[in-house]
């Protein structure tokens, strides 16, 4: 890192002071310069007053994982000065507000300190406390434009777009950005050694967060009922669904809604609403995070056992309990795969970025209908709430939803005695009938023991016949969920397994490991249950690493339980402090392990010695 179009910088500010919109403006401007860029909003569980950070990484090679170190840090929050200074790489830069004298906390050998009196400039140029606070963000953005060669024409254009309807604000913002830009130019050598240069690498890309993309997927899948209870970091999914529905699903003539979104009294109710709607024949979903998943357990078991489709988006955050609501993690893997009491197993999809959130959201509704069961989409805070550069979303207009085996009124007319859970076609999936369609299709949904006709039973054989079929159905689902993505190269001696939001960091780590002479193959798990190729990959390498973001190596457990691969033959690489994964974590763990194994005189070394 640290060169033209290859560096990272951080804005350390105070939550609630308007810095978030200035920071995303900077990121967007870099994107429009055609340069691959990633933004990570590291925000507190707070509305106003606590420290917040925004990290922007520019990478001409297209790496999108969180950067391990900062070339430049803008420090505007006295309470984090010490931490901010420490986060600057050796030889890097620190930009602080010199309206006040330089605090001793900020002094550090080996970095360059730049001071600009942002606060003073705002007091001199603008009226009103709130206005000055907000515009300070725009002033530092202007300074960064000078330091980093951000195209001022693009920035100006973006301000015009943003404040198209607010002329007064537009003028103030334009002045603020110029103030910062001019000051930096006049007082320092600009640009800094690492800076931007126009590229043409973002042409078919967009910048979007995973929750918006997942919501858009729900719209395109034809979901009509959404039920939820507000919880970070999943809230913005339903907010996005609401705004897309208002845009796309409002009847032009009447203004009436072709959707029903219900903010429930709690997550139990949200799950119940989704399941009730799924039973009635709508495509329905709920979105939540770990605590909500805990509350939904009983309903999930009901839907599994009574075979009702519904989609559950789990935007994972750091647990357990309330945990760290604004930090990311992948620690719900086991609680999703086996959610609820009794013998239960569920389809789980693992998107790795917003693009996949869109397509997997659509897929989730198809799988839920086809297999008549709850389907989980396991996203996380990093994917869900951060802005990611990814491929422009496309839609195939010939797509038609797979509603599964759903009997029509005509089909039911000729049915003498409808049996809800009879496996007529031998694939483990019984045909269902929707309420209101035909009297012949009437049956009684019950979470209590039932036989294949749906009738109450306490008979051992009749009970087992149904749950055994559910197990067969689940095995079939292994062939229908998204297959793993394999990255294989000739001569690989190491296997890496990972999933979800770890993907970007793993890809980058593989490149860096190769530079170090370690050749690795990579399998990215995209769906649960696992099919045969998963076990085959685990058996292909002398050493296999499983990279995931939780303390207890949950993916490794899942692999061991479901494929039979001994867990000790998979080496866990774990990162669970709540921050998005960096490539360095993977590189250090993999290379460190191999070095250790080598010094312990591995069989490989012995063989070499003999040769």
């Amino acid at each position: 890192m640290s060169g033209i179009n290859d560096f990272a910088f951080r804005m350390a500010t105070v939550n609630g002071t308007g810095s978030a919109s200035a920071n995303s403006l900077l990121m967007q401007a870099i994107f429009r310069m055609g340069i691959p860029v990633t933004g990570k909003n590291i925000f507190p569980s707070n509305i106003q007053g606590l420290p917040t950070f925004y990290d922007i990484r520019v990478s001409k090679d297209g790496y999108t994982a969180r950067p391990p170190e900062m070339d430049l840090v803008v420090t505007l929050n006295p309470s984090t000065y010490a931490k901010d200074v420490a986060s600057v790489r050796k030889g890097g830069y620190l930009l602080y507000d010199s309206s006040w004298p330089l605090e001793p906390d900020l002094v550090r050998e080996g970095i360059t300190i730049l001071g600009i009196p942002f606060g003073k400039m705002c007091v001199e140029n603008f009226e009103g406390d709130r206005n000055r606070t907000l515009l300070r963000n725009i002033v530092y953005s202007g300074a960064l434009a000078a330091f980093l060669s951000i195209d001022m024409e693009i920035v100006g254009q973006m301000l015009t777009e943003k404040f198209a309807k607010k002329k007064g604000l537009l003028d103030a913002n334009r002045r603020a950005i110029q103030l910062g830009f001019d000051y930096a130019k006049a007082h320092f050598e600009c640009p800094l050694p690492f800076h931007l240069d126009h590229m043409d690498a973002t042409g078919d890309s967009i910048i979007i967060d995973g929750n918006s993309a997942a919501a858009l997927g729900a719209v395109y899948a034809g979901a009509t009922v959404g039920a939820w209870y507000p919880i970070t970091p999943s809230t913005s999914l339903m907010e996005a669904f609401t705004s897309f529905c208002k845009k796309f699903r409002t009847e032009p003539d009447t203004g009436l809604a072709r959707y029903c979104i219900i903010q429930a009294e709690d997550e139990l109710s949200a799950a119940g609403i989704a399941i009730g709607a799924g039973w009635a024949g709508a495509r329905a979903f709920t979105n939540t995070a770990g605590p909500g998943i805990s509350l939904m357990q009983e309903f999930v078991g009901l839907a599994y056992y009574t075979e009702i489709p519904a989609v559950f988006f789990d935007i994972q955050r750091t647990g357990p309990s309330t945990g760290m609501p604004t930090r990311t993690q992948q620690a719900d893997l086991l609680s999703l795969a086996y959610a609820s009491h009794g013998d239960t197993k569920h389809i789980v999809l693992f998107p790795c970025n917003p693009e996949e959130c869109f397509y997997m959201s659509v897929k989730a509704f198809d799988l839920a209908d086809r297999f008549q069961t709850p389907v989980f989409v396991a996203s996380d805070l990093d994917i869900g709430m951060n802005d990611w550069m990814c491929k422009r979303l496309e839609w195939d207009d010939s797509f038609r939803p797979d509603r599964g085996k759903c009997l029509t009124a005509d089909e039911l007319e000729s049915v003498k005695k409808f049996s809800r859970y009879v496996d007529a076609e031998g694939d483990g999936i019984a045909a269902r009938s929707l309420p209101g369609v035909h009297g012949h299709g009437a049956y009684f949904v019950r979470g209590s023991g039932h036989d294949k006709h749906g009738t109450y039973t306490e008979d051992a054989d009749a009970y087992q016949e149904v749950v055994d079929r559910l197990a067969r159905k689940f095995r079939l689902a292994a062939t229908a969920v998204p297959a793993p993505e394999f990255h294989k190269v000739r001569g690989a001696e190491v296997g890496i397994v990972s999933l979800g939001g770890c993907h970007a960091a793993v890809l980058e780590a593989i490149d860096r490991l190769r530079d170090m002479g370690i050749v690795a193959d990579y399998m990215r798990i995209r769906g649960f249950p696992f099919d045969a190729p998963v076990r085959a990959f685990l058996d292909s390498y002398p050493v296999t690493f499983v990279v995931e973001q939780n303390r207890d190596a949950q993916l490794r457990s899942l692999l061991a339980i479901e494929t039979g691969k001994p867990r000790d033959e998979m080496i866990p690489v774990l990162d669970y402090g709540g921050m998005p994964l960096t490539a360095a974590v993977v590189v250090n763990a993999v290379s460190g392990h191999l070095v250790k194994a080598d010094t312990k005189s591995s069989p490989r070394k012995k063989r070499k010695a003999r040769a």
Partner: protein
Amino acid sequence: MTSITKPQVRHPGLRKNALGFTQRDYEGAMSTLCAGCGHDSVTAALVQACFELALPPHRAAKMSGIGCSSKTTAYFMRESHGFNSVHGRMPSVTTGANAANRDLTYIGISGDGDSLSIGLGQFCHAIRRNVRMLYLIENNGVYGLTKGQFSASADIGSTSKKGETNIQPPIDPVLLALTLGATFVARSFSGDKAQLIPILKAGLSHNGLALIDIISPCVTFNDHEGSTKSYKFTREHEVEISAADFVPLRREIKAPVTNEAISTVTMHDGSIVRFRKTHEGYDPTNREAAYEHVRACQQRDEVATGLLFIDENGADMHAVWKTVETPLVDLKYEELCPGNAALQALMEKYR
């Protein structure tokens, strides 16, 4: 409802309703409740009400939670879908089903344990959303399936079969519903079919959530001396403060409403509820007065029954949310998917 297995022969002379169904067609599986259970009487009343209203069975959905009361959805209308969900969660499942298909008639059956303890939140919020449904609470003051624990509707001082005295105050679903803004609130008694049937019919025709709290004695665990939910206690303390007749839309109204002792409320489908004057000055369209009256009765140890409050102008969930008239399940995929052109236009906003 049927407590004995009946042969499937049909008497040719059985009365048929407008759809050509006999009352037998509205029955369901054999009841597995105790002989004499109040719930079976409620089921019988429901069968008759649905038959007389000529409700198409396949257009109704029977919803329930867990408990003795919740089992009864299996005992009527065998050609209707039924959903026996989880304890206390019938309201949310019904809310979702109604959101998806607003055209079905939802008959929710719950009990005092199901709605007033584990499901109290869902009960309140279904009322708050005014989900169009019939909501019956078969109220016996006791947990039957777990053998006789007090429920949240048990009165202070009432005793259990084992002789313990209840010391906690009850939650009254009628008073609660009135405070929450329910648009149809009634209380009846499983032993008073003549009163119950017209109320059920009115509830089934109501444009919103129709709550009927039905005192339905538990013959096994709560029908003894000392119980305030027994047949004997209820018969001795029941005071009908509002007597309602239900006149369905398709029946000709012969007698014009001239008698000043009778007031009427027109339902959204044109049916009419006629109130015979029983209590001096009682007005079933005045929420505050209804609340005061029920409280006053309680203080005199009376159980106020009848259609206690009705507001036929309240907006149901779909009216509030402004959803399309067509049930969402009947919308075609083409009406739901914006297509690639719209997606590409949208993508420009993410650049």
